[in-house]
């Protein structure tokens, strides 16, 4: 499987858990959102303490089986609390 480097944006409490507003990590090209979450949780165990969190791809909430591509805009979305 080919590797890709992706940039992952982090907001709210995820930014504090990750320690930056974005991180660049190397992943298998085309891995699923579920696997991406597993990989992120290994690196940043604090994510598992959250009530929940979602992954967004290209400004849309992604489902677990969706593949992640190098050109995607990827973001960690912790529980939202606007309004």
């Amino acid at each position: 499987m080919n590797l890709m480097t992706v940039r992952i944006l982090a907001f709210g409490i995820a930014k504090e858990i990750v320690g930056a507003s974005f991180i660049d990590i190397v992943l298998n090209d085309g891995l699923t959102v579920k696997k991406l979450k597993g990989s992120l949780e290994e690196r940043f165990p604090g994510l598992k303490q959250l009530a929940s969190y979602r992954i967004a791809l290209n400004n849309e909430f992604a489902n677990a089986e969706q593949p992640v591509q190098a050109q995607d805009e990827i973001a960690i979305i912790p529980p939202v609390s606007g309004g």
Partner: protein
Amino acid sequence: MKSPSFHPLVVANTSFKKLNIDLNISAKPLDILKCIEWVMSQKSGGIDVFIGTVRDATKGKAVVRLEFEAYVPMALNQMEKIAQEAVRKWPVDKILIHHRTGVLQPGEVPVIIAVAAAHRAAAFDACRFAIDALKENVPIWKKEIFEDGETWVAAHP
């Protein structure tokens, strides 16, 4: 190995405007009257407005200030979906959703939703739907700052 694509963190677009939809994410104070004026027209029989305000206490603890952060392009995208769904589900003439970012003091206004419709039931229902959906799915976060600490609202179980 593929190289990383560029993800701009600073985005020029903070608003979206069409004939019947007005969305905005702003670091500046929101203007309640301007929001109401934008949805007002002779076509409509009524306007329903939801104004969110910063409470001065949470569970008995005094709130010093709130800090709002938004993932702006996605927040606008989600807000547009909510507005489009409101227009599709109810006979709404105009809908406006404005949200504030940055530091807010108790009493200040983080969100305004204004909905104009021919009849009041549609305006009430669409406005209620819009604020509920915003709280569920728009990527905006608030941190409550107390005198002895701070917490990201809803982050932990």
